[in-house]
């Protein structure tokens, strides 16, 4: 074996799961391209994906960290709305939108940390406890808003922070650039930083991690906090794009974001995860949402195909083998 092919082998071996999800993405794009070339080459189809994709990326990438740490979270879909709500009421009370964004994002991180602390110190199942938080926070928002939306067209339209975050950069949506920056940052955090490495250890074998002096509880709480932070960012980006907060915001992303994590090739059992794979997972999910209609099928087929692709993706990722012990 020559050296070059062994390097390629190594890269493929190390990133097999990410390449797998890239494969699904390419196949899906080809199907849509062949099925509806006209719709597919029209830019407004992609523009609608460019609204959804960044939001999903801010939600899904932190979830990869959390799943790799051996936990799961559902409450992010409500944290998303809470951060957006805090942002909206601050803007409405006359506070500068830039500061309101900061407050919203921080509130997301704080909620995430509290959820993490509840699960870690209460020794609760993260699936069930975060389900509780999901309803609790959503209920709180509904009570506080009395189910009313908040529109902020006047306050946001000409503000610099709007143009910086979700404006246009030579015709390219700014939110995609921020999402890209977030992906690159997260990649290094997950694979090259002590925080990410400790997440791998904790998710792989928390007893070993503890014996080697890693503060397992702190790692988990910080990871939940990161999920809350991502949810806060996602909520605020969507609110900026649409100029409005509405109380059911984010609920639709709950299952789509989780699907993107697993379609992206992160196994459910902890200790492993892939950021690049998750990005392709997001691509698959986001394009599914518009692609079904673009190829001329009725929108009622969307969930069916979402389900189909999740199952096919899981079967495909199975080829990367079982958990090693």
């Amino acid at each position: 074996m020559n050296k070059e092919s062994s390097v390629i082998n190594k890269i493929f071996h190390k990133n097999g799961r990410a390449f797998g999800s890239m494969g699904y993405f390419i196949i899906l794009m080809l199907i849509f391209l062949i099925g509806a070339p006209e719709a597919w080459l029209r830019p407004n189809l992609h523009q609608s994906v460019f609204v959804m994709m960044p939001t999903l990326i801010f939600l899904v990438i932190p979830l990869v960290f959390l799943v790799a740490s051996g936990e799961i979270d559902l409450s992010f879909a409500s944290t998303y709305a809470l951060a957006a709500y805090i942002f909206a009421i601050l803007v409405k009370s006359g506070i500068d939108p830039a500061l309101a964004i900061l407050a919203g994002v921080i509130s997301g991180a704080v909620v995430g940390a509290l959820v993490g602390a509840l699960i870690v110190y209460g020794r609760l199942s993260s699936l069930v406890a975060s389900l509780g938080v999901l309803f609790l926070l959503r209920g709180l928002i509904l009570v506080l808003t009395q189910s009313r939306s908040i529109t902020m067209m006047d306050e946001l339209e000409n503000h610099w922070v709007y143009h910086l975050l979700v404006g246009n950069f030579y015709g390219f949506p700014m939110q995609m650039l921020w999402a890209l920056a977030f992906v690159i940052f997260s990649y290094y955090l997950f694979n090259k930083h002590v925080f990410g490495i400790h997440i791998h250890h904790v998710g792989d074998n928390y007893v070993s991690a503890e014996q080697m002096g890693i503060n397992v509880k702190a790692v988990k709480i910080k990871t939940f906090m990161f999920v809350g932070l991502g949810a806060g960012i996602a909520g605020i980006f969507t609110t900026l794009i649409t100029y409005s907060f509405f109380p059911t915001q984010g609920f639709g992303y709950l299952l789509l974001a989780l699907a993107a994590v697993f379609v992206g090739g992160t196994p459910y059992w902890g200790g492993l995860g892939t950021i690049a794979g998750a990005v392709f997972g997001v691509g698959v999910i986001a394009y599914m949402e518009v692609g079904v209609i673009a190829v001329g099928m009725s929108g009622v087929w969307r969930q069916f195909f979402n389900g189909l692709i999740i199952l096919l993706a899981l079967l495909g990722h199975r080829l990367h083998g079982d958990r090693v012990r």
Partner: protein
Amino acid sequence: MSNIIELKNVTKKFGGITALNKASLHVGAGEIVGLIGDNGAGKSTLIKTLVGVYSPDEGEILIRDQKVSSWTALKAREAGIETVFQDRALCPQQSIVWNIFMGKELTYPFGFVREKEQINEANRLIREIGFTSKLINADSPVGNLSGGERQGVAIARAIYNKAELIILDEPTNALSLNETQKVFDFVKNVKKSKRSVLFIGHNIYHVYDISDRFVILDRGEVVHQLTKNDVASPEELMKIMRDTIVQH
């Protein structure tokens, strides 16, 4: 000779069960101490308390004659105590290099890892230990290794950190003869370099061979502390152990 670590009257309970009852133990500099006892005598609990994985319900822990409070696994490692746990304490899905540096990564400021340096060190260590085959490199996941090779990774981790005291909890369990000999050679090397070892085992012959001093644990209590001069042979050590268990 000062003690690297000392446990004084340590009690540890799990629910209603007393795993350790006023146990005391010390390890001096350059000393090899053998900790023996039957299954369930509390050896592993004693070790885990010693290295901060469990916190004792009563009693004191002294490091170089200084009493410590809120003793944790990280503090033990920072104090120069490394442990090769009975379960090896490895993460099988992660690479050898990540396992060797687990919890003590080499970092730049802000916590980013010095990858090249870690890989070079890991490759040097696995060659030095001689446990692992030439096909294995620092990037291989630990899950692909045999039991002996995994033990090699756990030992490599302990020696990298230049510990003054290395604790080996049943290090020869499930190892081949050849691998067991490597563990003994390793212990002798550590002794030559004037560092200390606390060796836990239930094979009396192994423990007798390499220890300077013996501590016998039975049902959570330290029942005997003997030097090699007190015991003429492994058979005698075995007899002492058996008698105490009967009397107890």
